C-alpha cells in the first residue's frame, strides 16, 4: 500500500468559517471547581512557607532530602523519616524568558516577560529543584548556575501558598573568572 494511492480524508476549516457561520457549532464552558486537599506533606510545606521558611522531607534509606516534601519516598517506596528545614537560597538549574501566558495568549508590549525557572534549593539533595519565578533581574543577565535567593511577601500578607515567595532574585556573587566551563552532565542520582 502507499498513502498516495488513497484519497486521505479530513476537512480543514478556516477560522473565518466559524465566524461567518459556514459551519454549525455548539459551545460549552465547563463550570467545574475543585478543592484539592493539600495532604500531609504539602500541608506542612505551605504552612512553613506562610512562616517564611522552606521545609523538605528526608528519607534515611536513600539519604535524599526531598523538595517538595513527600510522606513516602518514591524510589525506596517506604515512608520518609524526618522534616528538614532547607535554605531559601539556591542555584538556577534552568530558566526561560516567557512571552506567552498560561493559555498561550501573548503578553502585551508593556508587560515584562515572565521568568520561570527550575531552582535547586540549598540544603536539599542534589538536583532537587522546584519551579518558581525569577525577578529583580534583567533577563539578558540570566545564566544557568546563578545563585538566587527567595524574595518573600511581607509576613502579614502571606497565606501559606507557594506564592508567599514572590520570586527568586540573583544574589551578588563573587566575581568569577570568565571562562567557559566544559560541558558536563549531571551525575546519576
Amino acid at each position: 500500500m502507499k498513502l498516495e494511492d488513497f484519497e486521505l480524508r479530513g476537512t480543514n476549516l478556516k477560522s473565518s468559517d466559524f465566524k461567518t457561520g459556514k459551519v454549525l457549532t455548539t459551545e460549552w464552558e465547563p463550570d467545574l471547581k475543585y478543592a484539592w486537599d493539600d495532604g500531609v506533606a504539602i500541608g506542612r510545606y505551605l504552612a512553613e512557607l506562610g512562616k517564611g521558611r522552606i521545609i523538605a522531607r528526608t528519607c534515611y534509606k536513600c539519604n535524599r532530602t526531598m523538595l517538595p516534601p513527600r510522606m513516602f519516598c518514591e524510589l525506596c517506596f517506604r515512608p520518609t523519616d524526618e522534616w528538614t528545614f532547607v535554605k531559601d537560597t539556591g542555584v538556577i538549574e534552568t530558566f526561560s524568558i516567557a512571552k506567552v501566558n498560561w493559555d498561550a495568549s501573548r503578553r502585551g508590549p508593556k508587560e515584562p516577560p515572565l521568568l520561570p525557572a527550575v531552582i535547586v534549593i540549598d540544603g536539599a539533595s542534589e538536583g532537587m529543584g522546584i519551579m518558581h519565578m525569577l525577578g529583580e533581574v534583567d533577563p539578558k543577565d540570566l545564566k544557568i548556575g546563578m545563585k538566587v535567593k527567595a524574595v518573600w511577601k511581607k509576613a502579614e500578607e502571606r497565606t501559606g501558598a507557594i506564592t508567599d515567595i514572590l520570586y527568586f532574585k540573583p544574589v551578588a556573587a563573587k566575581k568569577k573568572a570568565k571562562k567557559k566551563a566544559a560541558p558536563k552532565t549531571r551525575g546519576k542520582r
Partner: protein
Amino acid sequence: MGMRKVAIVGAGITKFVRRAQETGKELSWQASKMALDSCNLTLDDVDMVTLGTAPDAFDGVHMKGEYLSDGAGGIGKPYMRHFVGGGTGVFSPIHGWFHVASGMADICLVVAEEKMSSCHPHPAGAFLTIFDHTTEQPLLPTLMWIFALEMNRYMETYGITKADIAQVSVKNKLNAMDHPSAQVAEKITVEDVLNSETLCWPVNRLDISPASDGAAAIVLVSERVARRLTDKPVWIDGVGHAIDTAYWATRDLSYPRYVETAARQAYEMAGITEPDKEIHIAEPYDPFDYKELHHMEGLMLCPRGQAAQLTADGVTARDGNMPICPSGGALGVGNPIAATGLMKIIEIFLQLRGEAGKRQVPGNPRCGLAQAWGDLMQMGTVVVMRN
C-alpha cells in the same frame, strides 16, 4: 518468552489539519476504515480494538474512549482505551501487541485520535491542570515553559546553540512536503526559525509543532494471519515503555532517562545490542525540534550531546546514513498527539515495505524504530520493527 509474533499488515490515516469539520468519531472511522481496506479485511474480521487518545480536555469530551468507540470499530467487541499523554500514539501498538502476542486476539485494530481544535482559547490552556495544583499551578505555568526550561538546560549541558537545534525543524518541515497528511510542510531556513516569534526563550514559534486534528489506525495480526494476508508483513520485534517521576523539576532535564529505559527493554526483546548500527531508520517524537535530538540520545542512536552534529552533517536527512523522521514528524506533518505517534509507526511500516513513495529512504532499510514521549515529560514508549 512464550509470546506470539505480531505483524503490522495495514494502515490508515487522515490528513492532519488545524480545525477539522469531522467529529472525533468520524476522523477515527476514516482512518480505521482505510486501515482495514488497505489489507482487505472487514470490521467483522477484527477480534479486538484498542484506542489511543490523549487528554479528554482537548476534545472536551469526558470519557473520550467510550465516545469514540463506534468510530473506532469497537461496538460489540473487546475494546480498551489507553492513555499515556504524548506517549500514547506509540503505546497504541504496544497495547495492541499485548492482545495479539498473548493469544487473546488474532486480529486487533489499533486506532489513535485527537481533536484539539475544540479547546478554546487554546489547547495549551487544558494543560494548566497537569501541573501540581498546589505547588505549581498558582504560578500560572504554561506547558511551553517546561519545554523552554528543558531546552535551555540541554543547550547549556552540551554547548548546543539555537541554530544547531533549528536545523531539525528545517529538515522535518522539508520532509513533510512529501507526506500527503501534512499540515505545516514548508521549505524554510535556520534563519526563518531563529527570526520567528520568540514565545518562551529559547523556544521560537517555528521550533514547535502545531495543534492539530487527525486520526490514524493500524491492523495488528498474529503470524498465522499475517502469512495468509500479505507477503510483506512488518514485525513488531521489540516494545518498551517506562515512566519517570512526576516531580519533573527534580529530574536531569538534559537527558531523557525514561526513554533510555524504554529503549533498553525494546532492544533486549529485539536482540539489538548496537542500536546505532542495527537500527536503520527512526521516528523519534519531535513536538519541539530539540526533542528529536534529546530522544535520539535517549534511544542511544548516538552519544549524548552528539545528535545536533549528526543533523548538521546530514546523517539524519532522508538520504543520510540514519534517516530520522523521514515522514516530516510532528514538526512537519502536524501533531494530533496520539495520532502523531501512530503516524510514526505507519511511516516505519511503509518504509520497511519500500512503499513510502517520494519519502522512501534509500538502501532498503530492514530495521526501524518509532518512539513517543509524554505525560509530564516523563513517559517513554518505544517500538522496534523489522521487515
